[in-house]
Each structure stands twice: as structure tokens, then as C-alpha cells.
């Protein structure tokens, strides 16, 4: 078989020389390696006190955006659910009644919108598939729970608040490259 | 000191009786260990510290470990009582009784024995034991080591696979 990298070592059963057979030099060498690590820099980050710096395009918990007037953008088209490779998204669509124009932007809206965070692989395909720019991935972390049920996030936890000051900022992730990639439908998974 | 002597002797006799009377081999080995440790205590009472420690190292620490090792490996904990005929029982009773008579007859005389030499409190210390072994008893000592070597070589011979 051809080696994929040149890092693998070929094992050999050659006779060991006397210096190799008394093992002592090898043990001392090993002990120097460990003592170097003893005084070396530690890889651990003290989590609650320090947090690791996220990448700019980190894909964390989802948000369902509202528009400038505070109306939900989602129209429950189901494209995100179709695009989802992990089948984590489900929704129930409903028709907008008169008098609800200030709540929902489109005539059809999602009455129930659930994402199972245990199934979600945070690939971002839902964001890419969304025609209404309603769902986005943010740099927030899905919190840990003791049971499985709380991991199914409903609209109460996904939709951002109406108050303009409490809106969730998604601009960090929407870099030029990401936008360009999104426009290139050749890479899209939902064509 | 007298109290210690009787205390150690009591433990020793009881554990020695238990060695032969318990059913489980593991338990009897453990009682034998207790017996040996009290014997080491007796040596210390006689100011023979070297003998006491050697008793613990050699008998309790090595030989009894091997005993225990073998019993554990063979898993001899199952109680097996071989059937005995009444003839063997009577024979055992007679021989045991005779042996007991001989023992009593022998120990009856020991109460009247007086030591030939005055008790030397240093006799059991390492230096004294060493001087005696390598001075007066050099030849028997070396001969016994030769016997040990030959037995070790024999054991290795048995252990080797046939070619």
C-alpha cells in the first residue's frame, strides 16, 4: 500500500545494539522529554474564568431574526428542514390572521418551529437555504442540560426579542467571503 | 516480661492448634503465619533480634507467601474429607497416643535441666551470630550453602523444557 504521508515509521526487527539493550539511555531520554513538558506551556484554558476566542465565522446556536419593524421573517417554507442533513428542524405552518400584520411579515408563518440541538451538527445549511434571511447561526453556545428534552429548542428560545437593543447581532459571521459563498448557488446543497 | 511470654505462648499455642483444626487451607496458612510471628516475638524476648527478623523475612515473608501462592493457584478451598475406615482410625489413635506419651516423657525431664553456660544477653545480636557462624561453625555453614546451590540447580533442571 502506498503511504499517504511520509510521517509513518517503518517498524523493523533488527538486532538491538548493546547501548539500546541496556535501555538506560532511552529511559533518560524519555525522562527529559517529560520534564520539558513539565515546565512547558499548558494547553488547557481555565474555562469559566477564561474563554477561548471564537473564530469570526463560528457557527453556534441559531437565531430566528425579526425585521426592522419587529415582525418575524420566517414564512415556514420548510427549505431549512429539507436542507438539514441531520433532520433536526421541524415546523408547523399557519396562516396569518388579519390584525397580526405587526407580528409576522409574510402571510404564512411558523406556528411551531423546533430545532433539536442534540441532532444539529451546526453545519449552517439552514442559514444558506433560507430565502427570507430569517435563520442565522450565531456565536452563542448551546448550554448543557441534565435531560434530553430541554435540548429541543422552540420558538421561545430561537426568536430574537422585539426590542431593538436586545436584537442579536449576526454581522460578525456575515463576512464578505461568507456572503459571496452564499450567492454562489453552485455550492448550495438545496438546488 | 513473664506476662509477655505467657501472652505470646497462648497466642502461639492457640494458632498452632487452629492450623491443624481448621477446614480451609487458606485459614490454616494464615494461622501458621500468626504462629511464626509470635515465634519471632519469643526470639525478641530472648534478645535474639537477628533471629527474630530472619524468622519473619524467611518464614513469614517468603516461605508462607509461596505456600499461600500455591494454595491460591490450586484453589484448594473446597472441603474434601476422604473417607476413613475404622481400622485406620484406631491405628491413628494408637500412634498418636504413643507419640504423645514420648513427648510427655521427654518434656518431663527438661524441667530439671540447668544451663551449662551463663546466659549471655548479647548472644543473639548480629555480630555475635556472625562470629559464631563464620568462626566455630564455618564448615557446616558453607556446606549447607553448597546444598542450597545444588538444590537450586536441580530445580532449574526440572523446570527446563526437554529439548
Amino acid at each position, binding site marked *: 500500500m502506498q503511504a499517504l504521508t511520509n510521517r509513518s515509521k517503518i517498524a523493523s526487527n533488527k538486532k538491538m545494539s548493546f547501548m539500546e539493550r541496556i535501555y538506560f539511555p532511552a529511559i533518560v531520554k524519555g525522562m527529559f522529554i517529560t*520534564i520539558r513538558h513539565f515546565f512547558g506551556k499548558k*494547553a488547557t484554558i*481555565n474555562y469559566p474564568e477564561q474563554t477561548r476566542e471564537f473564530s469570526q465565522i463560528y457557527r453556534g446556536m441559531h437565531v430566528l431574526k425579526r425585521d426592522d419593524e419587529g415582525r418575524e421573517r420566517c414564512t415556514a417554507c420548510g427549505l431549512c428542514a429539507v436542507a438539514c442533513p441531520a433532520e433536526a428542524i421541524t415546523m408547523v405552518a399557519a396562516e396569518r390572521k388579519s390584525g397580526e400584520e405587526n407580528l409576522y411579515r409574510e402571510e404564512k408563518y411558523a406556528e411551531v418551529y423546533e430545532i433539536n440541538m442534540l441532532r444539529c451538527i451546526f453545519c449552517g445549511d439552514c442559514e444558506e437555504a433560507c430565502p427570507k434571511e430569517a435563520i442565522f447561526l450565531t456565536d452563542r453556545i448551546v448550554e448543557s442540560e441534565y435531560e434530553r428534552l430541554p435540548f429541543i429548542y422552540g420558538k421561545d428560545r430561537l426568536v430574537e426579542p422585539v426590542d431593538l437593543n436586545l436584537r442579536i447581532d449576526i454581522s460578525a459571521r456575515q463576512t464578505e467571503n461568507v456572503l459571496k459563498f452564499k450567492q454562489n448557488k453552485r455550492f448550495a446543497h438545496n438546488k | 516480661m513473664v506476662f509477655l511470654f505467657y501472652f505470646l505462648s497462648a497466642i502461639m499455642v492457640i494458632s498452632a492448634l487452629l492450623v491443624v483444626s481448621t477446614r480451609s487451607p*487458606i485459614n490454616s496458612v494464615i494461622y501458621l503465619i500468626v504462629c511464626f510471628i509470635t515465634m519471632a516475638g519469643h526470639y525478641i524476648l530472648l534478645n535474639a533480634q537477628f533471629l527474630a527478623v530472619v524468622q519473619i523475612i524467611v518464614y513469614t515473608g*517468603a516461605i508462607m507467601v509461596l505456600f499461600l501462592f500455591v494454595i491460591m493457584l490450586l484453589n484448594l478451598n473446597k472441603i474434601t474429607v476422604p473417607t476413613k475406615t475404622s481400622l485406620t482410625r484406631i491405628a491413628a489413635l494408637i500412634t498418636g497416643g504413643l507419640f504423645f506419651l514420648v513427648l510427655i516423657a521427654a518434656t518431663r525431664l527438661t524441667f530439671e535441666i540447668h544451663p551449662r553456660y551463663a546466659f549471655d544477653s548479647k548472644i543473639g545480636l548480629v555480630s555475635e551470630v556472625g562470629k559464631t557462624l563464620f568462626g566455630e561453625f564455618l564448615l557446616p555453614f558453607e556446606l549447607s550453602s553448597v546444598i542450597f546451590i545444588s538444590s537450586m540447580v536441580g530445580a532449574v533442571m526440572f523446570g527446563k523444557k526437554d529439548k
Partner: protein
Amino acid sequence: MDWTLYIYKTIFLFIIFLITLVIAMYSTYGERKVAAFMQDRRGPNRAGLFGLLQPIADGLKMFMKEEIIPLTANRALFILGPSIAMTTAMLTGVVIPWGGTLTIGGREFSMQIADLNIGILYVFAMVSIGVYGIMIGGWASNNKYALLGSIRAASQMISYEIAMGMTIVALILSTGTLSLHEIVEHQHGIHWNIFYQPLGFLIFIVCAFAETNRAPFDLPECETELIGGYHTEYSSMKLGFYLFAEYINMFISSAVIATLYFGGFNMPFIDQLGLSPNLLTLLGSAFFFLKIFGLIFLFMWIRWTLPRFRYDQLMNLGWKKLMPLAIFNILATGAYYYFTEFN
């Protein structure tokens, strides 16, 4: 009756037991820290400052755990096992000279509980009895893995005791005494035995690793093969006793190595300092403990560097490598003294 001496010895005994226990307790913390640092981690740092309360938290956890005695186990022996392991581990510290002599109010107090004239042999005796803790506990568990662990422990201990005893013979040849106190005094200043018996020291330290069941010789509790070895079935504080006995053994064997090969409470240039004798004694004890801590670190360092031996490799090393080397060491030492001193 000299009551002050009795009272002093009793108090000193308690202090030594206390120090042994505290050091063993913090060895567990030290072990976790050393392991973490060598693997680029941080180790326990949540309980108290730098995690210093971690051993107390661990001890509390051990006490709170449910105590289980398996139904098929031999109850009496099951309890006897950890007790023997702990007792023999604690008893060895009695003969180690922890320092010189203190003079208080015109009376001399030795910082050693019992100066036996056969100190080294006493240490050996305690080590050889210590095997029973592991053997009996492993057998009484009535579990095949525990039994395998205890059988391994027994054969390993017996095999390495031989090489260990042989190296000690060479050491006794050069010092001429079996008393640990006299061996220490013989190494006054910087005349430490390690400079005269380097080969003996190497053999002794390898055997000490094997006798304390520390990696790379921790086959009796080999997690990957035997689950937990002899303490597979143990829980709660009985398990705690076994684990604790291992750390006490490590501390005591470090102390024995420091006494035999690193000059005990001797320190270099002690005569040039010109301090009062009491201060010198305390300084010597502090230096002794420094040596012990260094050796404990060496124990941990090796554990987190070397992989575990295979069983046949262990036996090969003990019988075919270390024992001939130790005999050679005796011969070389004897020849040296024959040709230099008796001419």
C-alpha cells in the same frame, strides 16, 4: 523508669505517623499535579487555592461512598487485607532516623523512634509482611481478576526482594553495620553511599519501584488487563486504605533510599556553618525531607514517563538481569575492600 523518654517517644511517634499520613495525602495531590503538568494539563485546581484542598475532598468522598462487601467474599479476610496493608506501611517508619539528636534542658533526644541494630532487616521484614495485605485482600474478594493481581503481587515481591537484599549486602560490606542510624553517620558530610555504590543504588531503586507496585511495575493493579487488580472488589475507605498504603509505601521507600544512599540527614558543608547543634539537627531533618520529596518526585516522574512492563519482561529483569548484577556488585565491593584495606 525514665518517664520523660517514654513521653517523648510517644509524642514523637504520633508526630511521625501524622507527618506520614499528611505527606501520603498530599502525594496523591502531587501525583495528579505532576501527571497533569507532564501531559500539558493543569491538574486539580478547583478545591481551594491551587486545588490544595483536593486531598481532603477526596478523603471525604471515600468516606461517603457506599461500602460493599461482595456476597461470595470471605468477610473476615476481606477486611483483614487492607488493614494489613495499611499497618505494615505505617510501621516501617519507626526505624528510620529522621534527624540527629536534639538537646533540650541538658537531655539528649534522638529523632529516631527505635534504633535497632538490625534496622535494615526490620525494613525488609515489614516489606515482606506487606505482601499479605495484597494477597489476602485479592484472594478474599473471590474474583478472578483480584486473584490474578494478588498472585502477580506475590511473585513480583519475592523476585525483587532477592535482588534488593543482595544490593544491601554490598552496602553493608562498605558500612559495616546494619543499624540505619550508624549507616547515616557513616555518610557524614558528602560521603554519600551513592558515590561509592552507584550500581547498587540503581538496582535498589528499580527494586524499590517493584516493591511499592509503582509504574512501570504496577502489574498487580494493571488497569488495562486486570480492571483494578487486587482491589477490584473494594470500595469506600477500604479501597482508600489500599490506595493510601501505596502512597505511604512510596514515602517510606523514598525515606529508606535517602537514608541508605543519600546520606539521610547529613548535608554537605555542615561543619563549616558554625551553627548551634540543635539548629543543625533541625536543618539536617529539613534537608532529609527535601531529599525525600525529590525522590517522591522521581517516583512520579518515572511513572508518567515509562510504560508498564509485560509480566515475562518483569520476571526476566528481576531474575536474569538484576540478580546477577547484584551478585557482581557484591563481588566487586568485596574485591575492592580486600585489595585496599587488608594489605
